[in-house]
């Protein structure tokens, strides 16, 4: 108990000091990159629960993110002026508003996850992929036609409600990892992996596959909603063009690269793939000026991975200190023998 408390206190101190140090030491561009990494990692980890651990290949994650982003942006945009007479604009008032917006975003995204998850229960493989892609696009088109959240003009969050803080985003990433890690590595969570391995056998063993599949959809949508909230409030502006199925493909590429069934792998891959387009800036002008070159790299990555390493970088394993010390011990042992 004490150990856990010390551990979480350490994380908190680390985050706050990182926030203070980094926001002074590095420039806005690198700061923005770190924010993007945090948000993408949350998306990848949450999608991994659905696509990786449960094996329900979904291509609609950007849709849930869009719901979270727009729902929370609408709350802070319309709720802020509404609450002002009572609470003022003090820090506490903003905090209450943020918490409310966050819960609303996660709740609404979760509800959408339920609404998508139930009808697609009987679908598998390719059909599920296309149906979820369809749902994602429907969500996007519907938002595009809602005038009170800006429609095709995009939607701005009020400036005083911007939340550009690395500590907060990384804190939520830690929270996501802890919650999803706790779920998938619990006895309850082994059900998800059982569904991945063989749905029929899991069913026969008494695992309630219907309930688990639906809950995988809901949980992953809830965290996509969280990522949407963070995205909207760190950017200050949302547009439906940020949530096309290309965004979904991007998240899927992260999950696949990291390993379908590895949380740490997803974080690693999200970091790599977020930094990739920035590295590409070093390419000659002639290549870069045409469209989104990073998508070509993603595409090649998917093809090559499936051909030579379909389990991704980490596969079903998690990266941890134990495995490293084990590796060192093994090398030592081999060294002694020879």
């Amino acid at each position, binding site marked *: 108990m004490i150990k856990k408390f010390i551990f979480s206190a350490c994380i908190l101190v680390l985050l706050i000091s990182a926030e203070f140090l980094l926001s002074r030491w590095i420039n806005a561009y690198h700061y923005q990159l770190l924010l993007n990494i945090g948000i993408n990692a949350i998306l990848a980890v949450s999608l991994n629960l659905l696509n990786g651990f449960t*094996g329900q*290949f979904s291509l609609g994650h950007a849709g849930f993110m869009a719901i979270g982003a727009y729902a929370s942006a609408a709350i802070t945009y319309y709720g802020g002026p509404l609450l002002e007479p009572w609470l003022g604009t003090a820090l506490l008032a903003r905090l209450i508003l943020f918490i409310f917006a966050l819960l609303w975003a996660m709740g609404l995204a979760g509800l959408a996850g339920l609404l998508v998850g139930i*009808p*697609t229960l*009987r*679908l*598998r*493989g*390719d*059909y599920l*992929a*296309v*149906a979820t*892609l*369809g*749902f994602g*696009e*429907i969500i996007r*088109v*519907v938002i*595009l*036609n809602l005038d009170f959240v800006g429609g095709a003009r995009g939607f701005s969050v009020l400036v005083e409600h911007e939340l550009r803080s690395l500590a907060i985003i990384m804190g939520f990433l830690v929270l996501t990892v802890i919650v999803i890690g706790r779920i998938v590595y619990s006895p309850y969570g082994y059900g998800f992996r059982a569904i991945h391995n063989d*749905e*029929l056998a899991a*069913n026969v063993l008494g695992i309630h*596959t219907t309930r688990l599949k639906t809950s995988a959809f809901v949980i992953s949508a809830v965290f996509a909603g969280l990522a949407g909230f963070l995205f909207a409030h760190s950017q200050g502006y949302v547009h439906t063009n940020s949530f096309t199925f290309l965004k979904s*493909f991007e998240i*899927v590429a992260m999950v*696949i690269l990291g390993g379908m069934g590895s949380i740490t792998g997803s974080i690693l891959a999200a970091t790599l793939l977020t930094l990739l387009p920035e590295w590409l800036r070093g390419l000659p002008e002639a*290549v870069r000026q*045409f*469209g*989104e*070159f990073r*998508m*070509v790299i*993603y*595409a*090649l*990555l*998917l*093809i090559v*991975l*499936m*051909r030579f390493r*379909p389990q991704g970088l980490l596969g079903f394993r998690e990266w941890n200190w134990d495995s490293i010390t084990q590796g060192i011990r093994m090398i030592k042992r081999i060294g002694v023998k020879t």
Partner: protein
Amino acid sequence: MQEFFQQIINGLALGSIYALIALGYTMVYGILKMINFAHGDLYMLSAITGYYAAHALHVHEQSSTFGFISVFLISVAVSTLAGLLIERIAYRPLRQAPRLSLLITAIGISLFLEFGGQVVFGPDPKLFPPLIQVATLWQWGGLVITNIQILILAVTGLLLLCLWWTIHHTRMGKAMRAVAFNLDAAQLMGIHPDRIIAFTFAVGSALAGAAGILVGISIPKIEPLMGIMPGLKAFVAAVLGGIGNITGAVVGGLFIGLAETLIVGYTVSTYRDAIAFIILILILLIRPTGLLGSGEREKV
């Protein structure tokens, strides 16, 4: 009433494009049980090839029958080759792999063609050369039928006839049906599955290539991402008609084309791209085997 008939004609022309693409999806699914996500991009590839071919042959300024036919043949040939190449390089090594790997590879190929296309062709839309001058063939009051619409319907009909004949009256077609029915048994009867699968990809890609040129002459704005939406809608058409079913793909394509044109014509146009997906979800919920499909439902 006139407007209604006009919408019907426009819908049929659009629907026959979807039908041509849907045939490729349905044939490949029938044999390999996979959705070839890259199929819609072959249609884009063909339109872009047509653009370059017309410029290379110097037929892009004036419309001529020779120009149209030669560009058509070149584009169809290129997309056929591309389809064969994709099958050989990307899909064949994964024949024994889990179906998810195949699906992810297909998505990868699709993204590669789209964004690789952007690198080569540029992301901005370009104007497809007017190989055929738009002319009004018939006009009753406000009802207009252009030569291009007739051409689309005629070419589609002709290709469908060829396809039907190939499948039902040639040895290759017989082998295709055998492989679709049961791949292992077909192999035991001395059929080379790889050869049949390659042939299926070639035929499907050729049809998508034809669709690309037909779209190029009727909606002359082409760009590397133009294949995504028609590809997805054609897939919906294939599912609607019953995937694996040739007639179903044609019926589904025409249905989607008509539904889209009519709904957009009479209500808001911003929902255009959501219509096909709504149809898809309804079909998967109500009748997953499609209108004409008879296959068993996937069940636990």
